[in-house]
């Protein structure tokens, strides 16, 4: 794993978990973000805080090509500029009202958010098909120990659970929490995918037990 997150990509959510017209919360080394996809399918990432009253924008909603705050309805475009303030319908919001935005790339069924200004593209993950994401109350080291494998510079590790090869894409969250994206080699049957999902649940239990042991005095 990269120890310095400046100028890097963080995998925050699977494409399938962000359908058009929705917004989800995510954590990145640059802080909490609201990741949203417009009705036409374009993903965007903004700071998860409305500059008006501080409400989380991930509690908001997407209409057409804009993200709106649930509190007073202020709407923002892809570039983070405020487009509409419902309480002042005749006002063209000034350019200075805007949310901070981050670069987003969608590669291999995963949405990546850029932290700082990454010089390269996110990894391709060729041949891997995303299954699901889950959060573990364990650091990367405990997950590596539970999986019996080390993550590479992209945060990717390969482990064999039962007869299945499973790839885990790890994104370190704050404290000892890790977001795990599960990837498989090819689609697989429904039974194989159910088995992989259950295997990763078991791996998470093991990693969390290791993390608890480590914390114990």
């Amino acid at each position: 794993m990269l120890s310095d997150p400046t100028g890097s990509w963080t995998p925050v959510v699977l494409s399938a978990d962000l359908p058009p017209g929705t917004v989800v919360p995510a954590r990145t080394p640059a802080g909490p973000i609201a990741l949203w996809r417009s009705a036409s399918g374009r993903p965007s990432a903004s700071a998860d805080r409305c500059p008006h009253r501080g409400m989380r924008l991930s509690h908001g909603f997407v209409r057409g090509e804009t993200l709106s705050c649930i509190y007073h309805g202020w709407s923002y475009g892809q570039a983070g500029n405020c487009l509409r303030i419902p309480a002042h319908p005749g006002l063209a919001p000034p350019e200075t009202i805007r949310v901070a935005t981050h670069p987003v790339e969608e590669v291999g069924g995963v949405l990546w958010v850029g932290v700082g200004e990454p010089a390269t593209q996110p990894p391709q993950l060729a041949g891997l098909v995303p299954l699901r994401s889950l959060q573990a109350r364990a650091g990367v080291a405990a997950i590596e120990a539970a999986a019996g494998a080390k993550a590479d510079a992209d945060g990717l590790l390969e482990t064999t659970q039962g007869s299945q090869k499973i790839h885990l894409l790890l994104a370190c969250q704050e404290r000892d929490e890790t977001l795990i994206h599960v990837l498989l080699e090819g689609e697989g049957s429904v039974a194989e995918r159910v088995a992989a999902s259950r295997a990763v649940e078991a791996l998470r239990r093991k990693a969390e037990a290791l993390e608890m042991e480590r914390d114990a005095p």
Partner: protein
Amino acid sequence: MKLYDYILSPSCYKVRLMAALAGVKLDIRPVDFHPGLEHRGPELMALNPAGSIPILEDGDLVLTESSAILVYLAAKAAPDWLGGDAAEEAARVQQWLSFSGRLTASLGGARLHEMLLRPGDIGALQAQGIAALRELEAGLFEQSLRGQRFLVADRPTVADIACFPYVALAPDGGVSLDPYPTIRRWSRALRALDAFIEMPGIHRLHELKPEPHIESGEA
């Protein structure tokens, strides 16, 4: 049918929601749950010695368990919501109806502790709530692999209504819903249903409401 109801109770909301979805008109009798503790008073204790709400009264039938009330409303007015008769589907309905009791005990207990200062081990309640949410997330994810958007089938059933309210209000008890992408999609699907009704803290999908247009001239 008369429902002894409290607006902020997720268990009472289950009944109001199921009735709305099934097209049943309820005669609502508000109960002063907080601060009046009316559910512990003689009138309601005579109806339900357990001292809990909701209570549904229909003729001489008195029901005090929310899952039983959901099944009654569905059987009377909207049998599709009971799930199919096939062994597996019938069992899945029962599995999640029973499971919903764990959501009430854990997430509901944490919520009562945080909102009404009820005694309890908040750390343990939250940990049990998180364990239950993880089970629900995994269950819904496996359903999605089978091409089904809801707990039992590709259409909602009483099982979804039994589980939904305490999950949606988990943040009231200090339990975040951020880590559960499949629960998020399930919640959206339920909140987009045509006859969906709200309760304080649970809103219909906002983007489905008409965009407000105020005459300009001000500003």
